[in-house]
């Protein structure tokens, strides 16, 4: 076999083999892109009502300005915002809220002092989709430590 084909063959085996890394190593699972485990949408759900919660976070500044927390405002991606903050804040995770304040207020002259998590629940019913507003969850920024 020609030398070039030997190297290509080694490369093919390595590329295929590297796909085992995220499966075998939990620590590296999320860090070895583009070699990924492909378990997407793998969990099943029991029969029952189909429900989904739609949520968004608003931040209110010291002067009363209200702004929606978007990936651009946060400096993250949509999925990052969802997993790191939207889901924990809906579960009353105040540590995540304080972390979000910290990130949002970096170099802000008018810092955010309040977060409001608004959500609605959509349920599939016999007559169509039913929308129900949920109570707003509010977080206040912890006072800054004295300098």
């Amino acid at each position, binding site marked *: 076999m020609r030398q070039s*084909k030997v190297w290509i063959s080694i490369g093919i085996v390595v590329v295929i083999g590297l796909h085992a890394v995220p499966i075998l190593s939990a620590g590296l699972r999320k*860090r070895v892109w583009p*070699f990924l485990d*492909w*378990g*997407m949408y793998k969990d099943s759900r029991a029969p029952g009502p*189909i429900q989904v919660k739609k949520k968004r976070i608003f931040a209110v500044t010291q002067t009363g300005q209200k702004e929606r927390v978007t990936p651009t405002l946060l400096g993250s991606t949509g999925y990052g915002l969802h997993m790191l903050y939207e889901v924990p804040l809906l579960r009353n995770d105040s540590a995540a809220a304080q972390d979000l304040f910290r990130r949002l207020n970096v170099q802000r002259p008018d810092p955010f002092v309040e977060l409001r998590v608004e959500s609605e629940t959509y349920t599939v019913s016999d007559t169509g989709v039913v929308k129900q507003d949920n109570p707003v969850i509010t977080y206040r920024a912890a006072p800054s430590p004295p300098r």
Partner: protein
Amino acid sequence: MRLPVQRWIDRWNAYWFPETSTLYLSITRIVMVATQLFWLSRPLRDHLILVEKNTEFINPQLLISAITTIFPRDLLFSTSGFSVFYWVVWVAGLLALVGLFTRVSLFVFALGTWILIAHIYSYGDRHHTEAVFVIVLMALAFAPSGKRLSLDALLRRRARKTADESDRVDTAMWPLKLAHVLLAMTYFSTGMTKIIFGGPQWLNGYTLQGYTFADAVNRNIPLGIWLGQQHKLAIVLSVFTILLETFFFVSLFLPRVAPLIFISAFFFQVGLLLTGGHDFYQHMVLLVLLLFFITPDWWRTLWAKYLGRSSPPISARPAIPR
């Protein structure tokens, strides 16, 4: 008598290194580079927002960690550093597209694309859409993908002032074969995890309804919201999903049914896009390339039948064992 090892090597060569024209590979280069360059690459602004608003990575990809280990973080991950890097990758992409210094420009473009995407995925986010595509993009840099339809080829012809050299090589198919194998692996893995973790309950219709409805409501996709309310249809589509994902690999062994499997997978991806907003455009592009170039007999037969002439002799032939 041939040794068993030699027989395996012959089989390996016959699969990965059949003698073919480089035309399909060159078209693949143009399609993939243009797709990445003009359609799927994230704008510079997205990167700069991440660079400016984050003093550190949240969960850095190994590729990004390696770069920050070798170079000071501010050298690349600053507004000016990243802007320069982004445009270098862009110029390399343009050169790869027109086929000038093809191998080098493709390598720089592919590596740069890896770094750009790994950067986006170093802030608590990570998706599957680009993975297979960028691996194949890198593979193109190690194959003669600039041998035709390129400025390099034009310059070579002018320098020699003769007709083009032989176009048939045995290293023009392996990137497409790699794309095929990787897609088969990833579909199989996705299907098997549903079977192992979800069990038979994954087929109950409620599972697919729940996933579709959640994605569609959050992304305001009317077709998905409608599908989320169709229980019986969800059962049928669940079965189709599991069958397609688990048995896509059959296309590796049965070339005659491979086009049907590629077409099914293409419409599966389109369906996911229209109902759940899952934008696996890269998979769609790869599936179309495989449909036409891995198993070209079906369209060449149709071509000959309806246009009354045979297309150029560029189909694959097994390599002669050397």
